[in-house]
């Protein structure tokens, strides 16, 4: 099945997906037979490991050593030293290719086919070889990545391969590679939308693509976060990414203050709708908190979305949110996040608002009492909050 064809079949077996283990047909076998089998497997593994180490130490960076590392890594991709060895081998191959490009004599017999392929791709022969090397390794990684989607070293090696390609190949080739990476990471995120390795890698890929093409992908990525959120509201990574994109979006769109207000309004509406649907979801409150933080005059980390913005504007939004969250309590009086948000919002309001503080401060005292009741395990934390509130 090509990648373009839409997937129609459902698989009934799976490894480590959503934390559900494989359906295992046989119980753990502790017989002598099984132990003997296991002993042999351990010996084989150790022999392979020794083999690889010895070869690398003696600087045998041949194709058969590469194959040996492939065998070892397929069995144990967490063994990061072997990834380092693999990169030594690949690096050596790359350097030899680059060197051969400058040296006209002493070249091996060059295959006509290779020259033709290189010309067709618009690459020099060394570049073509490097491209093949990189692509082969990328292919090698794919089944490993699917089986171990949260292994740092696999993602890391992939990054390295892409960086190597970017260094040695012309932009039009590397753009294709990075675009393929975007496709891959979208697939990985479709399989597990909360894999933060995937999200981090995606940002890396997008950054490179933007650099190579000279144009911003903020709009598309913003749409992507919308899709992912619609798929799963609890996607903290998607909400976080969204919060990174909004300030850039507003810059790029070059909008005036009215449109900036509209954007902030739309985001508040979105998160309010989500919060009404499920106020017990912490990742939603984090995003709400982000939106509030953009209204914070003293906050250097969170850029203001509104521009220009006065304390009166800020107070208006905070008042609006206070009212909205107060209503949310109705039917969810046992939700501690709502009380936390009310207190947070009130503190912000008191900083920028004007007028009589006492009514709000009295409400805050009540909310704090509720919070202590609902979540007695965190009594210390509520005491700290109380002290901070200086009521």
């Amino acid at each position: 099945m090509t990648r373009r064809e839409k997937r129609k079949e459902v698989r009934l077996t799976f490894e480590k997906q959503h934390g559900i283990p494989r359906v295992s047909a046989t119980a753990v076998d502790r017989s002598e037979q099984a132990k003997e089998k296991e002993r042999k497997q351990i010996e084989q593994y150790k022999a392979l490991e020794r083999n690889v180490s010895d070869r690398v130490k003696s600087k045998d960076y041949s194709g058969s050593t590469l194959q040996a590392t492939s065998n070892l890594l397929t069995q144990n991709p967490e063994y990061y030293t072997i990834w380092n060895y693999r990169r030594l081998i690949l690096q050596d191959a790359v350097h030899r290719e680059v060197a051969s490009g400058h040296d006209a004599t002493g070249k091996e017999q060059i295959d006509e086919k290779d020259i033709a392929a290189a010309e067709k791709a618009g690459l020099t022969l060394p570049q073509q070889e490097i491209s093949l090397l990189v692509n082969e390794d990328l292919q090698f990684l794919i089944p490993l990545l699917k089986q171990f989607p949260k292994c740092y070293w696999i993602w890391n090696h992939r990054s390295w391969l892409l960086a190597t390609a970017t260094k040695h190949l012309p932009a039009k080739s590397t753009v294709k590679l990075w675009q393929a990476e975007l496709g891959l990471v979208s697939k990985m995120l479709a399989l597990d939308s909360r894999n933060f390795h995937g999200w981090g890698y995606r940002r890396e890929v997008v950054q490179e693509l933007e650099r190579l093409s000279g144009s911003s992908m903020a709009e598309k990525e913003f749409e992507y976060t919308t899709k992912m959120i619609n798929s799963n509201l609890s996607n903290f990574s998607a909400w976080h990414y969204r919060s990174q994109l909004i300030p850039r979006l507003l810059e790029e769109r070059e909008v005036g203050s009215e449109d900036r207000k509209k954007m902030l309004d739309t985001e508040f509406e979105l998160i309010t709708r989500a919060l009404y649907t499920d106020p017990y979801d912490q990742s939603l409150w984090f995003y709400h908190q982000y939106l509030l933080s953009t209204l914070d005059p003293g906050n250097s980390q969170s850029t203001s979305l509104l521009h220009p913005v006065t304390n009166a504007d800020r107070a208006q939004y905070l008042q609006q949110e206070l009212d909205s969250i107060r209503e949310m309590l109705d039917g969810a009086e046992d939700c501690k996040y709502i009380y936390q948000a009310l207190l947070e919002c009130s503190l912000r309001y008191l900083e920028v608002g004007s007028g009589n503080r006492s009514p709000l401060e009295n409400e805050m005292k009540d909310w704090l009492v509720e919070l202590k009741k609902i979540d007695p395990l965190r009594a210390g934390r509520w005491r700290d909050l109380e002290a901070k509130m200086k009521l």
Partner: protein
Amino acid sequence: MDSLDQTEWDVTISGTGLPQSLLALALSRSGLRILHLDRNGYYGGNEAALALRDAEEWTQEHGDQAGQERRAFSQAELVNKDGERSQTGLGPSRAYSLALAPQLVYTRSNLLPVLVSSRTHEQMDFQAVGSWFTISAPLSIQQEQSIIPTMMKVPSGREDIFADNTLDLRAKRSLTKFLRFVSAYDTDELQAQWASIRDKPVAQSLREDFGLRTDAAVAPLLGLALVPSSSDTTVMAYLVPRIARHMRSTGLFGPGFSAVLPKWGGLAEVAQVACRACAVGGGVYVLGQDAASASTTEDGRTEVKLSGSEKVTTKWLVGCVDDLPHSFSQQTGKEDGKPWPRSITIVSSPLTSLFPTTSEGGVTPAGAVIAVDSPDSDEPPVHIVAHASDSGECPQGQCVLYASTASENGMEKLDLAVKSLLQSVGEDPKPQVLWSMRFLQRAPRSAVTQTSDSAREGNVIRLQTLSTDVVLEDGMLEDVKKAWHAITGESEEHFMKFEPRNGEAEDDSVL
């Protein structure tokens, strides 16, 4: 083939319907000598899949037979358009594989793990059943053309509720809260609350206990639970576990769907693969033969006379009520159920709006469920399961609709429901019915647990017929397991747990 006459067997299974075929699969590694018969010329029995011409023959065989013997199907008829088949847009007969058993299989059903552990799942393809819909304001007999019925997607989880424009913020909150209750209703924490509401009628409890007052909020829940009777008579004890099953099944094999369907003709595929596995294990298969009568021999075995008048002796005789000799079907009664109307319709459009991908990058579903309210609120709804051409059941550009209802005189209702569906999708030109058949199927409406007394008479075991519930229920496999245990005496952990045969891959990890 050599004559069967005077042969001796350990187990004789009559009928290759799904329950019997699964038993054959369960016994496929036992080394027992198994004779597996079916009176038809095809596999699958009541769960078979039929090519178009075969379906037409089938309707003739099962025509007006109300009360003839104990056949499951009766009053079958074609409701064709007039004219040559080539003019109607139908493809060749073999391009169709119409399922007599299009039941949904929830991802958490007990059938799927068994297909994995028995190593048969890789011989089948499964596809996702993605979206659930309800149609309210359906066409009634009087109003056929004047009203356009409205179809709404059923929110089946939090994200759907979030996106649903017809629900106001309060309704969103209440619905999510209800679903959260449902997902944990059987835990200790909620025991007291569950005890207090379980016997209440659904409409009342949803209103009083969960603040769900509007039709917009209640109708989708009824649709999700595939409630067969009218909403006035359904109680929470029926509704809640079914919704819980739906929710707990969502996302198990991929985001956005909770049930699967076997490709190429519904449960028929499963029966076929199961029989094949038994044949590989040495089972002998004979089509066109029935267990016409049976008697006990002196040494306690059963002598079975086949329809071709050959006689075999067997230690065990197993079948469903339709496939066992008359003498053993004296226990028929409430377990056999009533005759329910069902129809199969081929439509001239792929009805793509029924099969949207349910999540970013997810699978494209090949199945959809539509609950059509009855115009009369006292009457039960019609349930339609739609299968896209990706299911292999019809050519591209068409789709198949399987309709059923729990109303005894409901044949006309099925047609109206299908018409409502075709109108509500809002396609232009309007999708047409290319071909349709309907029939009555007598079966229990929902799986009834048999006691061992009623299921066994000496060494004749009667397996329960599949219910006509839109969903495949777990009871069937439990029933098969009991029969397997009676025959082999082995303990439960070994049921359907097979090692790979020589030559099969040791490791069936994915990708």
